[in-house]
């Protein structure tokens, strides 16, 4: 077992190193941080731009491999370099990752759970009105771009605020700066973004789960369970749903990592400054070190997701536990 873990960790480390290095090389050769300075008016003196870029290890006149060596050496020591604006990358990465986590954790989990329940229920009630309603609802959500959904929610919340005359909903940022509102204020600011994430996540997982559930609905083991005296509902929940959850759990683990990075629109529309926003802004700015750091974190997250998926699999699937 220990050998297996060591092997797996080594394997993972190699993968992370490869993914991060390739991203760095791609970003460093494709992005043009110099343009960030050259577009200014008045344009800064050329010598100053060169000095600043060199200090940030972003100078395109330094050979790519030398820049890579500097960057990689830093990463090995835990130093991810500095952003184009001169801010150390590592602390910013943590700040941003935690912001994303706070923004998305509740919504992602809640959305997945609701989606699984809705999907399972829809499958059990296949072709009845309840199923149809869930299907139409989730397709409506899935076909709406996230930022439109978010703005629609904002418009609705604004309307409610107007009608009641009280500002029930607030959504700009994580909290109101300067206001002594404490945890309650943070919760209030979480409502709309969480709702956005929940809706999207539930729609995706609902669809997925419904199909998985349909596969097991008439499976032999469900019928066997019923033959042993369980009601249909008991058989479906205890045996059917459990089986159908295995792929969902894997899927959830893998999506979670990407949700952290992919929540760009949710973050932008609600004014949270997390990873998604950072990645997209950094690409726009030509911020090589920031892009590389996000890629590195993404690679780590995917590996962790893989491990988490395996564990979930082991818990849900008795054959895995019993087999070895």
């Amino acid at each position, binding site marked *: 077992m220990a050998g297996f873990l060591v092997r797996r960790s080594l394997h993972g480390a190699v993968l992370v190193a490869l993914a991060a290095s390739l991203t760095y090389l791609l970003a460093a050769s494709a992005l*043009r941080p110099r*343009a960030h*300075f*050259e*577009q*200014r*008016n*008045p*344009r*800064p*003196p050329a*010598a*100053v*731009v060169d*000095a*600043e870029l060199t200090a940030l290890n972003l100078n395109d006149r330094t050979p790519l491999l030398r820049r890579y060596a500097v960057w990689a050496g830093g990463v090995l020591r835990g130093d991810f370099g500095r*952003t184009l*604006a*001169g*801010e150390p990358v590592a602390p*910013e990465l943590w*700040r941003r990752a*935690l*912001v994303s986590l706070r923004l998305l954790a509740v919504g992602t989990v809640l959305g997945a759970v609701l989606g699984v329940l809705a999907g399972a229920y829809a499958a059990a009630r296949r072709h009845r009105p309840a199923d149809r309603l869930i299907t139409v609802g989730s397709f409506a959500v899935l076909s*709406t*771009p996230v*930022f*439109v959904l978010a*703005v*629609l929610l*904002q*418009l609705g*919340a*604004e309307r409610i*605020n*107007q009608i009641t005359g009280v*500002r029930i*909903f*607030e*959504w*700009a*940022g*994580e*909290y*109101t*700066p*300067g206001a002594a509102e404490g945890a309650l204020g943070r919760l209030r600011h979480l409502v709309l973004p969480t709702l956005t994430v929940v809706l999207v996540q539930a729609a995706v997982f609902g669809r997925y789960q419904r199909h998985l559930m349909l596969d097991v609905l008439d499976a032999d083991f469900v019928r066997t369970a019923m033959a042993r005296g369980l009601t249909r509902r008991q058989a479906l929940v205890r045996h059917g749903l459990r089986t159908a959850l295995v792929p969902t759990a894997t899927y959830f683990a893998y999506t979670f990592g990407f949700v952290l990075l992919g929540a760009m629109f949710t973050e*932008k*529309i*609600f*004014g949270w*400054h997390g990873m998604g*926003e950072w990645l997209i802004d950094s690409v*726009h700015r*030509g911020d090589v070190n920031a892009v590389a750091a996000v890629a590195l974190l993404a690679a780590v997250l995917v590996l962790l997701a893989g491990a988490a998926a395996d564990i979930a699999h082991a818990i849900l699937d008795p054959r895995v536990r019993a087999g070895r």
Partner: protein
Amino acid sequence: MRTLRALASSSALLALLVAAGCTVHRPAGPRAPDEMSALPASDVNPTPRERLRTGGVLRWPMPEFPVQWNFHHVQGAKGVVNEVLRGVMPYLMRSDERGVVRPVPEYLDKVEVVTEPRQVVTYTIDPRARWSDGTPITYRDFAAQARALSGRDRRYRVAAVTGYDRIARVERGRTDRQAVVVFARPYADWRSLFTPLYPAGTCGDPRVFNEGWVNRVPVGAGPFRVESIDRTAKTVTIARDPRWWGRPALLDRIVFRVMDPAAVPGAFANGEVDVLDAGGDASAYRRALSVKGAVVRRAAGPDWRHLTFNAASPMLTDVRVRQAIMAGIDRRALAEADLKDLDWPIRTLGNHFFMHTQAGYRDNSGVIGRYDPDRARRLLDAAGWRRSGRYRTRAGRTLRLRFVVPATQQISKREGELVQAMLDRIGVRVDIVPVPTDDLFDRYVLPGNFDIVPFSWLGTPFPISSNRAVFARPKGGNVQQNYSRIGTAELDRAMDRAAAELDPAEARELINKADRLVWEQATVLPLYQRPQLLAVRADLANFGARGFHDLAYEDIGFLAPAAR
């Protein structure tokens, strides 16, 4: 300071929103009569302080989070930094709405200029003026800043050396409170110098200059002081500073918070921020109009829209062809198309240096800027481009131009389509080339990979200093910001003379002379001065669409209940 406002990608996002079915009701906005004689220079609801209450918080969204707070550092010279620091740092000079710059009495009691035998400016510093750490503001601060920004010491990573490179030395006057600045060469825009002023401790030490203001504002001298910088929520709070010796600030605080432009309209509608820049796109503007308790303040902004022609491109090397293209473009129609939803009077801009609202503005467009397709045809015939079929050809080549537009910008695309249709009438083929918005300058405009490109420049109260790099003749492949890649010795001389002329009236005359030369070479076609539409809470005073007018932050406030 960020000049190229071509990157308003959020407008595309919001346009999409409208298309996706969000109903935005269009209330009857105040229509601007076309015959309105002048564009409003500034609209800030000027109100005497007695009618305002003491207290309140202004919540002001900003587009990005600054890291470097030294405005003179290459990383710090940004519009957002300037917006915050104007409340905190000593900005010794302030422009009025016509772009006329005067000393701020809290910092300077007197400023005297001597021109003969050489330019000497004597600043008499107000005896009350102190840095927030208690140190008096003295000639030493001037001397250190002049030295640091001169460009002579490479260790200072300065944003620009303009003007400072002309200073020979800074001396002590009769007292420490007097700075005598001696120029080696005359400099007309000397009022742009020492604003903001940084303490000698910063400018005297390259390490402090480069690193001492990263994520902090260690010292200030203004009506506000920086209270907190929150790097997680990306907010900067400045609070009234009791040590300020001038009129105390009316507001308790100003909270600057970073927000994506796409997020601001919603936050503004819900009363979570007090300011919304509604000039960028029509849907934000309409949303702002519908917000209860808010008004849209409107003034002619300092930035101007234009088309730049690449005179180094084979099709456009001949000045007659460039003049023909200009004559074939109906500038008014372009301005109408761009501005039609913004309730803004349509006025084409006739000057490359001065804006309509600026002292010295004159319409120099003359014959060259007039829409005249017949003249265009004659010029093209004379240049040897003859009609054969739909388009003109010469020596077997068709006269076709690449009109480069950033792909996410509807406004540029529309301009391209209009120009395409207009030039088609005179037999010139225009191909619209959409390019990734981030690549526009980097890969197309800077290397000269275009024929025509539309974007905006930012006007300043110092037209020669800020435009010299745009129109100066390229030297040895260094085009600076002259994306037309052409110039003349005569124009360079005209700009140099204007830059050295210390009499303001005479300088304006010389700048207009330079402008006529720019018109003649037909490289940059000004379209219009962009409107500044700022939605704010209706009871906010001494704040709004400011045009060239620099705000006195201590006077910003909310109306007292009785005065409402």
